[in-house]
């Protein structure tokens, strides 16, 4: 009965196949581990970047109806009739630093021509979103503080 014998052989435990599978399996586990290792290695755990919290000084130094750009921290401090607010000066398109144009009363980006109103609302240009409002408060020392990492809803003015 040669046919019967063949069936038995195919069901037999195949040592070579087992070791091949074991080898490939451990190699793929090692490959996944290497990918995780590489990702973790390439992500720095400590960053030497400026703090997101900025001290903008005394509110009295900003005259009413003024827009002041702090180039180093990339924020506008605006003293409107309703109160103070801080706006991110980083264009929502590709991250260039925008500029306040007092003669036109708008914020404009030099890179690709996006234009915004003084309250961050988009007028035109490739920018997909308005300039975000940043969390602003008055410290115990009476200084205006801005947290660049926290955005708030527009029209939340700080009164001093």
């Amino acid at each position, binding site marked *: 009965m040669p046919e019967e014998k063949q069936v038995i052989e195919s069901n037999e435990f195949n040592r070579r196949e087992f070791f091949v599978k074991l080898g490939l399996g451990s190699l793929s586990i090692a490959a996944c581990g290497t990918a995780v290792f590489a990702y973790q290695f*390439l*992500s*720095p755990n400590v*960053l*030497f970047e400026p703090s997101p919290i900025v001290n903008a000084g005394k509110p009295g130094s900003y005259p009413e109806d003024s827009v002041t750009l702090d180039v180093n921290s990339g924020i506008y401090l605006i003293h409107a009739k309703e109160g103070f607010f801080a706006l991110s000066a980083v264009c929502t*398109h*590709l*991250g260039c630093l925008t500029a306040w144009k007092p003669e036109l009363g708008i914020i404009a980006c030099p*890179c690709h021509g996006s234009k915004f109103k003084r309250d961050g609302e988009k007028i035109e240009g490739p920018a997909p979103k308005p300039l975000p409002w940043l969390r602003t408060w008055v410290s115990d020392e009476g200084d205006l503080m801005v947290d660049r990492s926290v955005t708030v809803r527009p029209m939340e003015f700080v009164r001093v």
Partner: protein
Amino acid sequence: MAKTIGNYFDELRGTRVWRSVFRGGTGSSTLRRSLAIQQNVFLHLFSTKVRRRMVGLSATWYLGTLTFGTFLILVVTGILLMLYYHPSVPQAYADMKDLQFVVSSGLFLRNLHRWSAHAMVFLVFAHMFKVFYRGAYRPPREFNWVIGIILLLVTLFLSYTGYLLPWDQLAFWAITVGSNIASAVPLFGNKIHFLMLGGNLVNANALLRFYVLHCMILPLTAILFIAIHFWRIRKDGGLYAQQSEPKTLAARAAGSAAAKGAQ
């Protein structure tokens, strides 16, 4: 009888030292000349014989060769510039200015590097247009076109990473814009941005990462794929020339054209 320079050269080629380096032996027979190609590590990738037409100006315009030439200039001048350049925030810009105004021949080497980089990007595109319009990407060379696309990307990444190294306003804002384009990738965009810059801002980590990419990782990738590219030219039947198109392909093209005409 006085010896000619040729006699001296033949004598040199007969010495034991020469024979230990070039084992092909002396003489200009076809066998010896073939061995000279086969037994040279740089030339053995190539066929021992090619048609004269294949290496002629008319067949290539030398665009690929010129691209490779600019690459060699960039490697040599780049290594020399590395001797005076520190990839650190306080020094990078000053080192670039020193290369322009203080280092002997620094201005020449920096400009050579810069102009060759511009020329390389231009030549890569010219080479690709030439290959495309002459139809040299068609079988059996279609895989070499893919290798060429990889080399195009490596060239553009080399240009992009090198753009940051002068550490001036142009460099800073160009990389800010470019890295923000990367963060437009769906789902992983911000992660790619963070890994690329080694932080959230174009800063010391970004400068160092771009330096390592520009001076080590990308040039080695380029060399690897250039070697494959050149090897494939010969293995895929040599440089493309209209007359060398295999008869079977020409017949197939004619057949499909005839079939279309019949419909």
